[in-house]
């Protein structure tokens, strides 16, 4: 009887009532644990549709020179108004702390004093791995200037701890190279990082498909940031829906706690003593 009474029609409500710790970045609470980028889509319309389908509340964008008389920047900001989304400008394409600080300041001016920033300082064009020395240097300067920094970094737990100590508001290790879609290649390092820092840990880069998102969230990370997995899917809108559910599934599975692994079978039906 207890089996049947625990499956009411409002099981979804029962599930959400089992509380999860809120996902908080720089004092603001979010219900979605999926963050998305706005790059690489075939059109602004597709960007908008896919991102809205993903349910993401935080969207990244890049800061670039205006192409003369081109309205792209305006279109992007019109498409993702700050009343609806938290904008996360990044320092993409910067290879030195100096350049990253410069772009960060421009982004803050562009967005009228907006302090939230995705800091990334890259070390190499082939791997797009972060240069952690330059990243630490830039983080120090920008934290002192009042930026709230979500920092893209390597999967090194020592560096993660140092970035956290500097005052970064989220640590965002890669799970595989940016745009590679290789999935979670460093689960033990990601777990070390979760144990090393007391701010949200967000896997940034590496996720290729929904099962990768589930696996990442099952580790207990706070959220995932992705771009290429949606933009380069055959159908970005459908993949956005898949990722939304993958992130939720992985989070719920983490909270639920999986069954133990056994080498041998364990019957699901009661074993009758006699027939």
């Amino acid at each position, binding site marked *: 009887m207890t089996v049947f009474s625990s499956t009411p029609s409002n099981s979804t409500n029962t599930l959400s009532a089992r509380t999860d710790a809120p996902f908080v970045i720089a004092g603001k609470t979010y219900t979605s644990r999926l963050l998305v980028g706005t790059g690489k889509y075939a059109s602004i319309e597709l960007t908008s549709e896919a991102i809205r389908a993903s349910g993401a509340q935080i969207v990244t964008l890049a*800061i670039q020179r205006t192409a003369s008389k081109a309205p792209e920047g305006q279109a992007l900001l019109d498409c993702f108004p700050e009343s609806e989304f938290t904008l996360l*400008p990044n320092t993409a394409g910067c290879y030195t702390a100096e350049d990253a600080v410069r772009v960060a300041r421009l982004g803050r001016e562009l967005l009228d004093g907006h302090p939230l920033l995705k800091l990334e300082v890259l070390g190499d064009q082939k791997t797009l791995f972060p240069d952690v020395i330059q990243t630490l240097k830039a983080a120090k300067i920008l934290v002192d200037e009042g930026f709230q920094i979500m920092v893209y970094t390597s999967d090194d737990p020592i560096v993660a701890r140092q970035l956290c100590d500097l005052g970064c508001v989220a640590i965002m290790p890669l799970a595989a190279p940016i745009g590679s879609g290789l999935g979670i290649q460093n689960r033990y390092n990601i777990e070390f990082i979760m144990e090393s820092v007391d701010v949200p840990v967000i896997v940034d880069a590496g996720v290729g498909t929904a099962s990768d998102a589930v696996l990442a969230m099952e580790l207990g990370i706070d959220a995932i940031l992705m771009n290429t997995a949606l933009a380069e899917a055959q159908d970005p809108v459908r993949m956005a829906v898949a990722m939304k559910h993958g992130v939720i599934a992985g989070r719920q599975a983490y909270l639920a706690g999986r069954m133990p692994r056994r080498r041998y079978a364990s019957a699901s039906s009661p074993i009758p003593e006699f027939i």
Partner: protein
Amino acid sequence: MITDKLPTLAQEMCSIHLNGQSTRFKKGSSISDVITAQELQGRRIAVEVNGEIIPKSLHDAHQLKANDRVEIVTAVGGG
């Protein structure tokens, strides 16, 4: 008419480096003038002159000098 004006025009123009490209503007142009000439008025942008950010509130007042390096940036898609 044209011959009358040409020397005056030449005198009144100066070059600035706008987003890395040499561009000619009337001497004494403000940042707002450059923004208007680029048809970027009303758009969300940020402006840097010789490495220093010039806040929006100063775009009208800030006059550009010859050889100023002016960067105008906006938001584009990125991850």
